[in-house]
């Protein structure tokens, strides 16, 4: 019997409402949260091997944070009313999506403040040696002050430590609430699990760490400064990535496993989707090609003695794979949940077009824009070394 005659989807449910924009939104916030955790490990937990990239991680996080609202504003039917999320949030639901306004605002303030503290001393030096627009910018970032005392540096250090520490739960919240947005929807069996915030958070950390590895190596290679990278930094990052990834993968499989074991009628519908329209994106791509294969590569890189060149090549490669895996994971959650239609008797459809309001071209632009922004920000925020003081103390 042709399965299509059994297919039935409620008339309003036929096409997915949440599109690529909703796939990349958690992706972008995930990268932000993950990059911040790397920087917190360096700053707050003093993991020495990560110190060279501590500042880079923050600027990396900032360049993605700037674009967090873009996919959402593009998706909304009335983006001009978006401010209501801030002014009339639904706290009696409470609506998890309403958390967006305040959590995003708080986290943006925290990240920018922390960056300003960490770069303050650098900017005061740079103010002296630059001219024109850049000089004005540095003046703004230092809020018009030019204190160079030791006490000032101590204050910078203490407060940025404090902000880094507070930032860890806040970054977790920034991405955890997204997981709750899905996890709290009982109408969609594929989403409704208490593990959802945890899975989202772990895969966010994974994407942030992978992004940092990849771009660290690429930027240093492109600027001809690859020799400046310390091997132990990459090895620590790789081990961190492997550890987080193991947890992420285990939780994803656990969720699947317990539901499959329980085999409720809702699960039967999910299972037929996983073996039907989602077979390629879930089993082939997310699980096999982009989880199992990287698991072994990361294991090899973490446990075996690998020469520097091989390490850099393989870790860039596997980081790129992980970045794609996290994108597939978001796709499978967001799109998959909608494909498994509420009629429990069929599958909805989703066919993104290249040139439409929420289509593929716009998605690519929104994913490339943070990288371009990173490059622009690097012109203003020195990514690596402390700016040496030009005056004698």
């Amino acid at each position, binding site marked *: *019997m*042709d399965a299509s*005659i*059994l297919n*039935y989807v*409620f*008339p*309003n*449910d036929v096409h997915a*409402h*949440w599109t690529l924009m909703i796939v990349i939104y958690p992706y972008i916030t995930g990268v932000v949260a993950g990059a911040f955790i790397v920087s917190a490990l360096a700053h707050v937990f003093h993991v020495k091997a990560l110190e060279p990239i501590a500042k880079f991680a923050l600027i990396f996080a900032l360049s993605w944070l700037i674009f967090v609202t873009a996919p*959402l504003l593009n*998706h*909304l*039917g*009335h*983006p001009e*009313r*978006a401010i*209501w*999320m801030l002014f*009339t*949030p*639904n706290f009696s*639901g409470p*609506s*998890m*999506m*309403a958390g*967006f306004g305040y959590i995003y605002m708080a986290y943006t303030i925290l990240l920018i403040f922390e960056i300003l503290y960490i770069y303050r001393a650098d900017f005061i030096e740079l103010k002296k040696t630059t001219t024109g627009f850049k000089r004005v910018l540095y003046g703004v970032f230092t809020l018009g002050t030019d204190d160079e005392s030791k006490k000032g540096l101590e204050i910078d250090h203490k407060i940025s430590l404090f902000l880094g520490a507070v930032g860890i739960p806040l970054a977790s919240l920034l991405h955890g609430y997204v997981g709750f*947005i899905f996890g*709290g*929807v*009982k*109408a*969609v069996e594929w989403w409704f699990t208490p593990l959802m915030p945890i899975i989202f958070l772990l895969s966010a950390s994974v994407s942030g760490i992978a992004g940092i590895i990849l771009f660290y190596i690429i930027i240093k290679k492109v600027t001809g400064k690859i020799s400046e990278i310390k091997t132990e930094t990459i090895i620590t990052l790789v081990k961190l990535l492997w550890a987080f990834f193991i947890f992420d993968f285990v939780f994803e499989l656990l969720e699947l496993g317990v539901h499959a074991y329980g085999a409720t009628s809702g699960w039967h519908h999910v299972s037929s989707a996983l073996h039907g329209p989602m077979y390629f994106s879930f089993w082939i791509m997310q699980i096999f090609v982009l989880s199992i294969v990287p698991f072994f590569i990361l294991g090899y890189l973490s446990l075996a003695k690998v020469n520097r060149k091989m390490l850099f090549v393989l870790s860039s490669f596997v980081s790129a794979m992980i970045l794609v895996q996290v994108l597939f994971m978001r796709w499978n959650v967001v799109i998959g*949940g*909608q494909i498994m*239609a*509420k*009629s*429990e*008797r069929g599958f909805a459809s989703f066919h993104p077009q290249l040139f439409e309001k929420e289509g593929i071209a716009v998605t690519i632009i929104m994913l490339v824009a943070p990288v371009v922004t990173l490059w622009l920000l690097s012109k203003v925020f020195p990514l690596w070394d402390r700016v040496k003081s030009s005056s004698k103390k």
Partner: protein
Amino acid sequence: MSLLRSFVSNIIDFESTPKFEAIEQKMVDRDRRGFIEKVVSGSIGGSLFLMIPMQSSLFAEVLGDNEMITLEENKNKNYAFIVDVTGCIGCGSCCVADRKENNVPDGQYRTWVERYVIDIYDTVYVDSPDGGENGYSVPRDDIKEEVKDAFFVPKLCNMCEEPSCVQVCPVSATFTSPDNFVLIDKNHCVACGYCVQACPYGVRFINEQTKTADKCTWCYHRVRKGKLPACVNACPTGARKFGDLNDPQSEVSQIMDSKEILTVLKKELGNEPTLYYIGASQEVV
């Protein structure tokens, strides 16, 4: 046998005209007001202005300017919407009426009718061509097995007492009114689509013209004017029933008080829907 079937079979007994004439006479003899009230309006309890056919005020009545039930009065009503699956003939009149009454864009549905066909091997086939709006004159020719049972199921907002949609709206644009109707503030909704995802019944959608969320409101604007929802008014067999449970004379009260088995959809989700079905077998989701 359901109440509707016995009611209809009493009226439509066209095997012998003498019996028809007897029934006809009974109807004419019955009190005119009571008759119209029961049959035409389907029992909105005690609304005087539906009954008295005065020339000039009738047009005002149509447009409802001075005949509104106030919010306070409406809070004292306990409305119920009951759908009798055994009475639905899949004509689509309800969908036609709803589309016009509420300006629903083509391809989007505040209400729709599904057709269930069950074969002798208990395989269930469900479809809803154009939401059932054009009726079901074309049979399902893709079903090869012998058919055991077939019926039509109207779908609309379940007007939950614990609505998932209200819980998830980030800007409080959808809410439960003081008189227990779940409504949407079209001037406030940002169309994020979260309510559409959260509704277990698929009755919400993003209206492509207003670019806000939209759904069946049980014709709140009609009910506040003492009228029936458009789909109930249009239903030729009375499969859709609407009334006030506080009025013991209403059809819905009588059904609630009877031994008729009423079910709701997706009860296990805990939304406490107040849309009840008569005759919806377990295949209906």
